[in-house]
């Protein structure tokens, strides 16, 4: 049902923009799935969306409306680069683990700050996380012009990691890297956590009705802090995985709105980890396919943004319709 709706959205948008839908669709599909290059692009684009989307899912399920995926993703990248700079002569596996742990800590620290502001100081994290995004982007700009700048001090970029320290690639003609599996593993872990663990259950409960938690002496504030910590860690991990898997360095354009896009990804995925896998692949494919479309049509990449927006709006409207129930519950 959702799939048909999403396809319809694609077709309508193409028609509105005056592109022959058949040709447009085939270009998108070709670009996203047509060959191993396209497939690799789809998965690689989906990876940060998936990690940040899972992060959003955890926070939102607990009632903490984290809008700071972007900042947490970038904080993860910065922290990863700091760790990478201070370590060097290590075997790749140890190095990579240290960088990824560092990036998770970076994202976590930022999210915990926003969580603390809400729980202890009454500042809504919707507001604080949005604002912290800008702080982190400025911090990034400063880092790559100051302490983290490459050794020649010419460009606003950090040193490029040597290929030997980057995440493993299975096909050197594509970007497909081991981080894709990390993200899928995290999705499975998130699902297990939310479905089977005591902590995951309490997280959902606090999100559904914090008063019930209170009446049962469950520390809602601590649980929401935990959810923010996990959320920030996953967004930070997204940044770390991209750093180690794709860019190898950080600079002003380190994030391509991955943390912002993660919000519609999480919503479209119904705040369900497997749903988020699906929606991140859908968005990943749209981006990969949009790149294919852009090669033949000047509006291609803009069009992809429009399609994303329409898909999210359509989804929200659709789920509202589904939620309509009689106002009086039967007695």
């Amino acid at each position, binding site marked *: 049902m959702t799939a048909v709706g999403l396809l319809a959205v694609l077709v309508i948008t193409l028609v509105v923009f005056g592109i022959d839908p058949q040709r447009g669709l085939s270009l998108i599909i070709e670009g996203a799935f047509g060959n191993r290059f396209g497939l690799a692009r789809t998965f690689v684009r989906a990876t940060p969306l998936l990690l940040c989307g899972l992060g959003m899912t955890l926070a939102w399920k607990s009632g903490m409306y984290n809008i700071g995926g972007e900042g947490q993703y970038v904080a993860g990248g910065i922290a990863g680069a700091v760790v990478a700079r201070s370590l060097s002569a290590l075997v790749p596996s140890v190095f990579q683990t240290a960088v990824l742990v560092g990036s998770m800590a970076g994202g976590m620290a930022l999210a915990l700050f926003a969580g603390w502001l809400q729980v202890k100081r009454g500042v809504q994290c919707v507001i604080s996380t949005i604002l912290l995004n800008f702080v982190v982007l400025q911090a990034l700009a400063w880092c790559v012009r100051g302490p983290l700048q490459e050794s020649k001090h010419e460009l606003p970029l950090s040193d490029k990691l040597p290929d030997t320290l980057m995440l493993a690639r299975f096909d050197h003609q594509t970007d497909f890297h081991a981080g894709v599996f990390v993200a899928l593993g995290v999705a499975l872990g998130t699902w297990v956590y939310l479905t*089977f*663990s*005591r*902590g995951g*259950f*309490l997280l*959902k*409960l606090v999100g*559904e*009705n914090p*008063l*019930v938690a*209170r*009446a*049962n*002496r*469950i520390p809602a504030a601590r649980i929401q802090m935990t959810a923010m910590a996990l959320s920030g860690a996953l967004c930070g991990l997204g940044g770390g995985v991209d750093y180690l898997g794709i860019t190898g360095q950080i600079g002003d354009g380190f994030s391509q709105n991955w943390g912002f896009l993660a919000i519609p990804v999480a919503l479209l995925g119904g705040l369900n980890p497997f749903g988020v896998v699906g929606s991140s692949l859908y968005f990943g494919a749209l981006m990969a396919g949009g790149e294919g479309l852009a090669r033949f049509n000047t509006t291609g990449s803009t069009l992809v943004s429009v399609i994303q927006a329409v898909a999210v709006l359509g989804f929200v409207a659709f789920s509202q319709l589904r939620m309509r129930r*009689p*106002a*009086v*519950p*039967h*007695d």
Partner: protein
Amino acid sequence: MLSVRSVSKSYGSVRALSNVSLDFMPGEVHAVLGENGAGKSTLMGVIAGFVRPDGGEIVLGDDRLPADPVAVRRRGIEMVHQHFMLVPNFKVEENIALASLSPLARRLELGPLTKQAMDMASSLGWHIDPKAPTGTLPVGIQQRVEIVKALAGSATVLILDEPTAVLAPDEVADLMGVLRQLRDHGVTVILIAHKLSEVMGIADRASVLRDGRLVASTLMSETTGEQLAGWMVGGREPPSNLQLGEGGVVVLRAHQLEVTGDRGEVAVRGFELELKGGEIFGVGGVDGNGQVELAEALARVRPLRSGRLEWSGRKHPVVAYIPQDRQTDGLALKMSVEDNLKLAAIADASLRFGPFLRPKAVRDWSRSLVERFEIKATSTRQAVGGLSGGNQQKVVVARALARQPDLLVAVNPTRGLDLKATDYVHGRILEAAAKGAAVVLISTDQDEIEALSDRWTFLSRGRTVDRLVGADI
């Protein structure tokens, strides 16, 4: 005349109403009786236009009424809901004005719009501050707001869904007086109630629903309370009271408790208590005099402002709490029956494996609770919000008593429940006490306190008093 003609309604596989036909005459108080889940609220929802029936129609005079609450209200049918339809962040006067707002573009003057309602309130002797934010008022006061809001309009049909659930006895008497006046002015008053005694005093006619069917409709002069009760429960015997266990040693001592309310006021002052295991201590009084704050303090949900609360029983006592409003702090309505029960399972080591809950063990455990507490649900995965009020309360009670508690704190545990469900909850509370639990029962229902408690006191403006006299209420 308001006529219900062959109305049927199903929710999934549950038949809430089947082929119900009823006439409501002008100038009569017509009681609609039935147990929880009998279909009373659904029937009222259909009349008020909130619920679209699967079949049948509602006719007022000669016109068929649409399933549209706004249109129905415009025809003079007003409803006072069991669960309040008030905007918590609005002031009282704003909530009342909502009932009569029509032209959006005109300047809003709350005074004239609310005058009639506020006059009504003061003629009832109800002191309601029109400027108070509604959500901060105790539920008893919120109910008064709800009632005057409906009474203020020029209703020809007034439906009250269990309006007396949180009122004190003389408030009930006041309300009944008002309803009599309205009846004498030709208004059709439809009263949904579960306390037969109230209905006996005022109703001209009673109709009884059971399992979604109309069992009987009769003039009150032609029937008796026993007969009505028999129709409601369908010939089942009410359960007998369990014997109290022998009182043990004092386990709970409260010394000079002071508790702060949500608005920073001192809600409870100088509360003293010594409670033995197996003993039931009742706290009566009118809603909003510190009951909820006291209960939360005893259940260790709310911190103390000062004083001491000592527990001299087991080292880690099992404290169970039945909060007063099942729909706000009792249940997560969108979550399943199992998830709501699970809250009690997370403390149980046998249902856990490290940080994980054992899904099968938890499912079996929750099924056994559903069986033991006779919760009527299609499955343990059903959202708890879809259950009837009585079954929702059973979920709350089942969760509180899943493990034998050392201390049980219950606030209005039978609010809005019918006879059978009330007896059931009372039985479970007595049973918990018989097994050695110390019980604090806080209730606005004096009959309930007297029926269950070994001894009791009253709360008035946060202090305990031996008896309630006029000024304390």
